[in-house]
């Protein structure tokens, strides 16, 4: 392949350089009905799962059809999205904050054709390309991260766990039978790029073995002081080590104090953590972001560990399902999963979801841990 220059001249990097122009301005992309009615919307209605109408003061309407986006998408797929947008929506579309795709039309009459078109497109393996859904009191798309597709610290895969989970809960992507919206998120390591710390249900990749020490290279590849200071628990100390007959400068890890966060590995590639058996999944539950009724809440750890079971993580999806079904059956209308758990008490949450409570779930991280223990005689047998 021949190198094709864009015009950039590496000898004179500053020549004609354009910088600091930011993103494209939003209003260039607004569909006309949006541009016209911005700030004048009166109300909306969810007509059926995945289909919304918003009505403006002057009577204008915009119909939105929301479809599952699988976020990790190729240009081939994007081109197909573009084709649909041009066919039905005058070439406009948007993505939601949870990576779904929204096709908007300005008249009710255009909705059916759009829907039909979307529904019929499938991949050869049988999955929908553009499943309609993700609205109201149902389950929408999973916010997630890179996993084994691209990152150096994951303890599990992102796209695969998400695909397995969305297949399992797909019914609820296309339904609105739950007491309230249920948001699932996924992050492949403790860095939590998916910000799973405030989700109704969160899937988290977690290591359980302390870093290996590549003594031979450590001092060459890493800055030892940086590695040491990276550790939140102070588990890493400088050390002189006998290695294959030589004394090398390296580090020692106090394994008892390691919480497997991988920070050291981020700072020092000679301290890898990943392990086929050690790595797996933590499940969290009961978080939320909205200020509706109750204040935002952190997710809580409800399953300390599940093994990585490729390619479909059946123990994980089964457990998630248990939580959803128990919640669906027992919670009150408008009640988010965390609100439900708090109302019935976490001891009942474990009973009803048929989850085992293990000592790992008792907080022991620093001073605030105390406030999660029970300082009361109020509890349920």
């Amino acid at each position, binding site marked *: *392949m021949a190198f094709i220059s864009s015009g950039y001249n590496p000898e004179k*990097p500053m020549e004609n350089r354009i910088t600091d122009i*930011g993103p494209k301005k939003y209003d260039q992309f607004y569909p006309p009905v949006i541009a016209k009615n911005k700030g004048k919307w009166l109300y909306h209605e969810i007509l059926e799962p995945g289909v919304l109408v918003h009505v403006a003061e002057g009577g204008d309407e915009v119909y939105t059809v929301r479809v599952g986006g699988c976020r990790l998408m190729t240009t081939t797929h994007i081109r197909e999205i573009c084709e649909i947008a041009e066919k039905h929506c005058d070439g406009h579309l948007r993505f939601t904050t949870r990576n779904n795709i929204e096709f908007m039309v300005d008249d009710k009459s255009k909705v059916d054709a759009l829907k039909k078109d979307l529904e019929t497109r499938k991949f050869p*393996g049988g999955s929908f390309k553009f499943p309609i859904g993700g609205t109201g009191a149902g389950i929408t798309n999973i916010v997630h991260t890179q996993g084994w597709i691209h990152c150096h610290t994951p303890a599990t895969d992102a796209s695969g766990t998400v695909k397995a989970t969305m*297949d399992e809960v797909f019914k609820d992507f296309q339904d609105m039978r739950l007491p309230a919206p249920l948001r699932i998120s996924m992050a492949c390591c403790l860095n939590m*790029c998916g910000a799973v710390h405030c989700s109704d249900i969160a899937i988290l990749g977690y290591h359980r073995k302390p870093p290996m020490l590549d003594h031979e290279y450590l001092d060459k590849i890493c800055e030892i002081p940086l590695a040491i200071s990276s550790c939140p628990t102070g588990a890493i100390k400088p050390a002189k080590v006998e290695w294959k007959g030589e004394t090398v400068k390296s580090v020692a890890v106090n394994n008892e104090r390691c919480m497997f966060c991988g920070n050291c590995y981020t700072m020092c590639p000679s301290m890898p953590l990943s392990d086929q058996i050690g790595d797996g999944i933590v499940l969290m539950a009961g978080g939320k972001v909205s200020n509706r009724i109750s204040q935002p809440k*952190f997710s809580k750890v409800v399953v300390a560990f599940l093994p990585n079971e490729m390619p479909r993580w059946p123990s994980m999806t089964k457990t998630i399902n248990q939580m959803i079904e128990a919640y669906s059956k027992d919670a009150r209308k408008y009640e988010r999963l965390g609100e439900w758990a708090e109302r019935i008490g976490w001891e009942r949450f474990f009973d009803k979801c048929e989850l085992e409570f293990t000592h790992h779930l008792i907080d022991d991280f620093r001073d605030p841990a105390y406030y999660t223990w029970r300082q009361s005689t109020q509890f349920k047998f």
Partner: protein
Amino acid sequence: MKHETPLLNQLESGPWPSFVSDLKQQAEVRAKNEENIEFQIPVDAVEDLLGVLELSYVDGTTHWKHGGIVGVFGYGGGVIGRYCDQPQNFPGVAHFHTMRVAQPGGKYYTAEYLRDLCDLWDLRGSGITNMHGSTGDIIFIGTTTPQLEEVFYELTHKFNQDLGGSGSNLRTPADCIGSSRCEYACYDTQALCYDLTQEYQDELHRPAFPYKFKFKFDGCPNGCVASIARSDLSFIGTWKDEIRIDQEAVQAYIGGEMPPNAGAHSGRDWGAFDIQKEVIALCPSDCMKYEGGKLEINNKECVRCMHCINVMPRALRIGNDRGCSILAGAKAPILDGAQMGSLLIPFIKVEEPYDEIKEVIENVWDWWMEEGKNRERLGELIKRQGLQKLLEVTGVTPDARHVQEPRSNPYIFWKEEEVEGGWDRDIDEYRKHHQR
């Protein structure tokens, strides 16, 4: 296909869009190359990506190494370097950096523009993207070092499009759809997001911060862009005056003519709408009543949680005196535990040119840049030096609104100037009255 992927193949079935199927179709398109593109990175990049991913599915570990420092000249962010730890077996992805491309507000696009991006990325990268990354960027996944400057040049010259953030700088700000299509928006999230993004381009591209810094813009307390959980400064729309009530529409809800919560619960028969049970009793501040066919709200006691409005959007509307609250310090758990944003400014007007808001931001940054340690997020600094300190440096008057509850420990660190007579005392004088 170059590699067998028996495990991944199992992810092609099931209803949810299969990323495996998508990657395979892309691999095929590249292999066929019907458009005769002179691919600037290996044509089999996608096949090798599938191969290395299959390997991870077999051995349960990642095969990506650390990034190293790659990027475009003069920018400290926008590119994440990535190398495969099995380059011999997967040469197509041996070097496989990602680029973060700043997304437009509200994530609206035209097909035309998206296709331009596709053309560029097919030529110069793997053709694989994230639409979008968790922060909000368009993510171009996978290219080689020499292509980074080329992509950047074409983006800026052809498309008037910049990269987003990474590293210790301002990250690409993101917003909810807001007033462009949502009746709940208390301010124009896209306008504010865009203005601040442009204003702080330098902070976005040239890392000079102790660590990353994020802005997110929610039009109302429903929080559709989750700003309270994942931005160092979150701007959340709110109002100060009364919820507007249309009593006739209230009756329509009660009469079952309009679906509660705009139909969000229509997948189950929850019985007839019961305003008492579903609205009044759930109001967290207990400030509503329905008597004699009239709904009344004691707005003074309302905490603007949105619940009643969400349930009856055609009867209740946000107030007219609008603005936003600013919360500070949200972040993921590393290193010190996750944080949600803590309330810094209860209410501020959102009016161009947003000078008041910018003053808050810059005061926060001045403090953080002065006091923040390396890799210390704003939230951690607030924890370390105290919310009192943040209020002090931003000139905000402390107020009961800043706390959920007052302190329960009485360990007050009085300052010398607050205590009459100061701290210097004469021990000999003291001993005259208090013998040893």
